[in-house]
C-alpha cells in the first residue's frame, strides 16, 4: 500500500512440517504479521515462492484465494473478529456457509467444535455476552471448523489477561496434540515458550530458529 515501497521482509526461508507448533517472535515492525498474512494468503509476497501442502500459492485470483483460505487455513486474531450480530454458533458456522454446506450439517459441525472448546452451553450467546477468553475460544472453534491444514494465530492472547491467555494456549496446545499444524505470532516470551519451535524475526530477517522444550500448561479448574 502506498507509493513508497517498504521492504518489510527481506529474505525469509523456512519450512514448517505437518504437526509442528511454531511461534514467530519479534518486536513490532519486525515483519512477523506480514509473514503471517502471506502465509494466510491475505497478502502476497512481492517475490519468492510459498508452497502450502504441495500447492504453490502464486498469482491466485480472489475466488481461488478465498477457497484456499476456507479449506486450508484457520485464522485466530488478536481482536477476535467475531461478527457481532451473530451468535457464537453462527459465527463458528460462518466458514461452513462459504464452503457451501447445508444448514443442518453446518449447525451440527459448528456445535461439535463449540463443544470442543467448551462453549456448547454458550452457543446462542452474542459475542457481546461473552468474556474475552470465551470470544477467543469461539474464534478458535471457527478457525478449526473447516478442518484446515494450518491454524494461524496473530497475537491470540494479545487482548487477554494472563490467566485467560493460558487457558487459550492450553486449548491451542491440545489442538496441536491432535496433529494440527499451528503458527502463532506473538511478542510474549511465555507464550512462545508454550510452542515447540521459536522463529525470531528482526527487521525482516530470521535471526534464529530453534526447537524448544514445550512448556505444558497445568490443568486449571
Amino acid at each position, binding site marked *: 500500500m502506498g507509493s513508497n515501497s517498504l521492504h518489510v521482509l527481506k529474505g525469509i526461508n523456512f519450512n514448517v512440517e505437518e504437526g509442528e507448533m511454531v511461534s514467530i517472535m519479534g518486536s513490532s515492525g519486525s515483519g512477523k504479521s506480514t509473514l503471517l498474512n502471506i502465509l494466510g494468503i491475505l497478502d502476497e509476497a512481492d517475490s519468492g515462492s510459498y508452497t502450502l501442502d504441495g500447492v504453490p500459492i502464486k498469482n491466485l485470483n480472489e*475466488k481461488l484465494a478465498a477457497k484456499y483460505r476456507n479449506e486450508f487455513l484457520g485464522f485466530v486474531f488478536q481482536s477476535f*473478529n467475531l461478527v457481532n450480530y451473530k451468535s457464537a454458533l453462527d459465527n463458528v458456522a460462518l466458514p461452513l456457509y*462459504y464452503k457451501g454446506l447445508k444448514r443442518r450439517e453446518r449447525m451440527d459441525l459448528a456445535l461439535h467444535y463449540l463443544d470442543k472448546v467448551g462453549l456448547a452451553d454458550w452457543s446462542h450467546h452474542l459475542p457481546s455476552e461473552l468474556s474475552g477468553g470465551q470470544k477467543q475460544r469461539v474464534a478458535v472453534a471457527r478457525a478449526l471448523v473447516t478442518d484446515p491444514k494450518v491454524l494461524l494465530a496473530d497475537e491470540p492472547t494479545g487482548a487477554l489477561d494472563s490467566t485467560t491467555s493460558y487457558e487459550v494456549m492450553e486449548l491451542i496446545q491440545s489442538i496441536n496434540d491432535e496433529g494440527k499444524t499451528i503458527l502463532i505470532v506473538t511478542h510474549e516470551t511465555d507464550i512462545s515458550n508454550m510452542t515447540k519451535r521459536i522463529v525470531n524475526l528482526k527487521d525482516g530477517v530470521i535471526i534464529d530458529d530453534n526447537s524448544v522444550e514445550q512448556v505444558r500448561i497445568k490443568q486449571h479448574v
Partner: protein
Amino acid sequence: MFSNDRWTEIVEALNANRMRTTLTAFGVFWGIAILVLLLALTNGLRKGVSSSELANFATNSMFMWTQGTSMPYKGLPRRRRFNYKIDDVAALKSQFPELKYVSPRNQLGGYQGANNVIRGMKTGAFQVNGDYPEFIKQKPMDILQGRFLSYSDINENRKICVIGPDVVKSLYDRNEDIIGSYIKINGVNFLVVGTFKISNSQGDSEEEANTIFIPFTTFNQAFNYGDIVGWMAITAKDETSITELKEGIFSLMRRRHTIHPEDKRAIGHYDLAAEFERFNGLFDILTIVGYFVGALVLMSGIIGISNIMLIVVKERTKEIGVRRAVGATPFTIKAQILQESLILTILSGMAGISFAAGVIWILNYILDLQGPVENFANPSVSMTVVFAALIILVGSGLLAGLIPANSATKMKPVDALRIE
C-alpha cells in the same frame, strides 16, 4: 440465489441496525407512494373530466351541418344556401360501411326562445328535436319512464314525444300522470311516451333538460320540413376513427349538392374524436409528468439507500475482511450487499405501494360519501402502473446496491482486517 441461508444473512444484517434501516427505507417508501398517488390523481382527473365533458356523447363521432357555399361552381353562385336531404343519410350509410350510426336531426324552437309548447293552461319554451332511435346510442340518456323513440314511430310518423325533466316540471303538477298525456307543440298534439334524464352532463344540463324528442319523420311532416335534414350526428365503428373518414364524407356531400370540391367552408363540422384525442393527449402528458416527478422523488429515496449502504459497507469493512478471511469470495460479498439493498428497496417499496393504495381507498370512500366532485372521479391506478412501479423498484434497488457492493470488495482483506 435466494437460498434460505441468504435470507437469514440478509435479515440479520438489516436487523443489526433497525432504526437506521427503517429511516432509510422511508425514503423509498415515500418516493413510490408519491409516484403511485400522482398517477392515481392524474387518472382521477382524467376520468372526472372525461365523464363530465365528453363521455356524454359517443367519442368517435362528429356533427355536420351546412353553412352556405363560398365558391361558385357549375354556374351556381357563391353564398348559396343548401340543405342535406334525407337520402344523403342512405347514401352515407352505403358508401361508408365503417359508419356505425348516421342520425339526421332537425331542431325547432330553442332553449330560452319563445313559448312553443302548450299543455292545458301551462306553456313553455323548449327545444324540439326530430331524431332517429339510434340517437340514444350516440348520446346516452336514462329513460325514467316509458320508452325512447322507435322505428315504428319513424315509419308511421307517429305523433309521440319523449320529454326532459324540466319539461315535466313546467308542464305537469306533481303526481300527475305523464305517460299517455298530450302536449301541443306549435299547434300539433303529441302523445308523451317517455321521459328521459341525461346524467353526467355538465354545462348543457339545463338546455338538455328542456328538450323534447319527437320522431324525425313526424317532425318533418308536422313542421313542413319536407326531406330537409338540418344536421347529422355521425358515429364511426370503433375500429375506424371518424377523423380519418370525415374528408371522404365531406367530398361525397359536396358531389351530391354540387359544391366546388375545394369549398371547405360549405360544410361545417365538429369532430368530437379529434377533441377527445387532444384532450387525451393532455392527460397522457400529465401522466408522463406524474411518472417523471414520482420517479425523481423515488430517486432521492434510492440515493438515500445507496448512501446508507455505502456507510454500512464502510462500517462493516472489518466484518467483510473477516468473512473473506474465512472463505467468502468477492462475488458472495457483492451479492449479499446487492441483495440487502434490493430487499430493503422492495420491502419499503411494497409498503409504499400499500400505503398509496390505502390513501386511494380513503379518497374513493370520501368521494363516495360526498357525491360527485366536479372534474374528479374515482382515482385509481391500473395493475400496469403497479407492475411498472415494481420494475422501477427492482431496477433501482440493484442500482442502489451497485456502488456499495463494488466498494465492499475493493479493499484487500488484509487491509480490511487492519481497520479498527
